[in-house]
């Protein structure tokens, strides 16, 4: 077999794993959209904020250090301690839950029964707010996130597959990407289990189905919203850890939210498996396109390929692959 064949397989495998990383962000969107009909643009910034908080707690940074120093002329920077990774993750999760509570309290409660578009724009406002707030709190420099996951290419796999064809040096797969895939699988499985077999999960599905009816059988919408936003915060934390470990915790992390949007359109806004499958299609599609067509038209096609693919796809199937059929009545 020719080496190009194996290289194509490598590109596909890498694409699949990048796609899983997109799906991690897309999952948070789906959770919130299903339960409250809110299209949460801030999901990407939540991932950034969660990762920033995690790094901040882990390395013992003083929150708002920059601001405090500017106003009071002091020179605080670090507390001088290191928090163990697991504790830091739990604390960051606590912050995300607090955040979910505040969002419900300060924003969602006041916007009940508004048009979906108004809610969407409110989440854009929320995204801006959190971006500025996160930077004020933890500083805007690029931070390194180390939670003990293995980094770099997998040497064993590369060595084992080298020489399968003339001029083929073995599959280059990133350890971190493989971990991310495994974690995503566990995450999705536990989310499915949670929503199918627990009481709270059932309540979540009831609210997603018909919130009026759910309200009338005694499910508290506001509690459900806090739970859903906390769950989305948890997913954001996982996504933030993965992306942060991969490319450093920095502003561009919040832009992966934009990449998650075409994933959602492909998979459908209301389907958890759809988010995963959509992510994989986008991941493989853009990698293959860049690999095969990219060099002829100037490269960097990853910037737009996902959107154009989603656009073309939507023209033929407006509700996405797994979305509920959109039925409209006058």
């Amino acid at each position, binding site marked *: 077999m020719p080496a190009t064949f194996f290289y194509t397989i490598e590109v596909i495998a890498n694409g699949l794993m990048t796609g899983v990383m997109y799906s991690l962000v897309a999952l948070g969107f789906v959770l919130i959209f299903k339960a409250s009909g809110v*299209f949460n643009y801030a999901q990407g910034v939540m991932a950034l904020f969660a990762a920033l908080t995690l790094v901040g707690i882990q390395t013992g940074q003083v929150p708002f250090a*920059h*601001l405090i120093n*500017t106003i009071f002329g002091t020179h605080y920077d670090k507390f001088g301690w290191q928090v163990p990774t697991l504790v830091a993750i739990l604390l960051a999760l606590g912050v995300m839950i607090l955040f979910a509570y505040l969002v419900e309290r300060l*924003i969602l409660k*006041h*916007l009940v029964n*508004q048009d*979906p*578009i*108004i809610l*969407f*724009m*409110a989440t*854009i*406002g*929320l*995204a*801006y*707010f*959190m*971006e*500025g*707030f996160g*930077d*004020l709190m933890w500083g*805007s420099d690029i931070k390194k996130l180390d939670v003990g996951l293995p980094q770099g290419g997998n040497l064993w796999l590369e060595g084992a597959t080298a020489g399968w064809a003339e001029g083929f040096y073995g599959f280059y797969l990133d350890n971190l990407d493989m971990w991310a895939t495994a974690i995503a699988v566990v995450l999705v499985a536990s989310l499915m289990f949670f929503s199918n077999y627990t009481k709270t999960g059932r309540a979540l599905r009831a609210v997603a189905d018909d919130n009026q009816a759910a309200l009338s059988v005694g499910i508290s919408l506001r509690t459900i919203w806090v739970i859903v936003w906390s769950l989305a915060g948890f997913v954001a934390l996982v996504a933030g850890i993965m992306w942060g470990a991969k490319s450093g915790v920095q502003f561009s992390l919040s832009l992966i939210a*934009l990449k998650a*949007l*075409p994933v*959602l*359109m492909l998979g459908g*806004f209301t389907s958890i498996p759809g988010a995963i499958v959509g992510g994989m299609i986008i991941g493989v599609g853009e990698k293959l396109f860049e690999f095969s067509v990219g060099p002829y*038209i*100037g*490269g*960097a*096609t990853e*910037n*737009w390929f996902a*959107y*154009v693919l*989603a*656009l073309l796809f*939507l*023209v033929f199937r*407006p509700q996405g692959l797994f979305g509920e059929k959109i039925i*409209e*009545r*006058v």
Partner: protein
Amino acid sequence: MFYREAGDYKKTYAEDTQTFPIKLDRMGYYAILAIALIVIPVMLANDVGGGANYWANAILLPFLIWAIASIGLNVLVGYCGQLSLGSGGFMAVGAYASYKLMTSFPDLNIVFVVILSGIVTALVGIMFGLPSLRIKGFYLAVATLAAQFFLVWMFNKVPWFYNYSASGQISSPTRTIFGFEVTGATATPEARYLFCLALLIALAWVAHNLTRGRIGRSWMAIRDMDIAAEIIGVAPLRTKLSAFGVSSFFVGIAGALFFSVYLGAVEVGEAFGIQKSFLLLFMIIIGGLGSIFGSIIGAAFMVLMPVLLKNIMVGQLGWATDIAAHFEFVIVGALIIIFLILEPHGIAQLWRLLKEKLRLWPFPH
């Protein structure tokens, strides 16, 4: 007491359909026009108080240009209900179209260059508006992101658009109207200001009359309930595409002005990135969806607020610029949320309420 329509009789059809039917509104409008057309240019030309260039570059020109763009986006989002996140890309189309026209036809007057760039952008906008016939709401918003990213990528990667220049930047040559330079490095602030202002007045008038005529009503019908509109005979194809076309025309003109008159030299990813699309969206949310007046006020608000914040935090308090920039994000975000909670219809609605109150003042029921 003072603000009323009582006693203001309309005797002809023309009087009844004029742009400002209430006398006090009309007088206020003329007063604003007089200030904008005479007082401000004279002040700029004589450099009253110093810093005419700063005023023109930091406040007046961005305000005028963003006002044109936000009228354009408001036609699409506020009047026709089609959410678009691709306006930054369409502004880039306007900018690059004007650049190609200026460099290919050096004798063409800048007015025609700007209008032709608007038309080119309108055609591109109609093309990207085609999917709106099949997809709606958020799905459409995401689809317009395709326009944003694809267009910016294209202007970056295809050398023909920037005339194979080494830096990949485009810079605008000097062009004149009636002998006055309006583009290029040596143009005076008052000439550039008047050029943009004239376009804003003309375009706002066009938009106002479009939105209250047959086309505007069909846009609003589609916005309010598209299926019902279709049943009573509003053609969705023509209506949606005309909204995309008109909107992109305005946004394209704004992009052309942004490049040629305001910035002078442009790097596409920086000047017309996704952030610009959001900025424009914020302008029309804060100003008021479905209101021409609101678009202009929203643009003024979003242009003035960062300047004001920067002056207070960096100028008065002496903070570092990056802290000020972060605060700006926090404040903009918080303002958007507060506006949406308190008054989802923006400043324009507050103005309407104020006028209602003024009618009864000082003797409310």
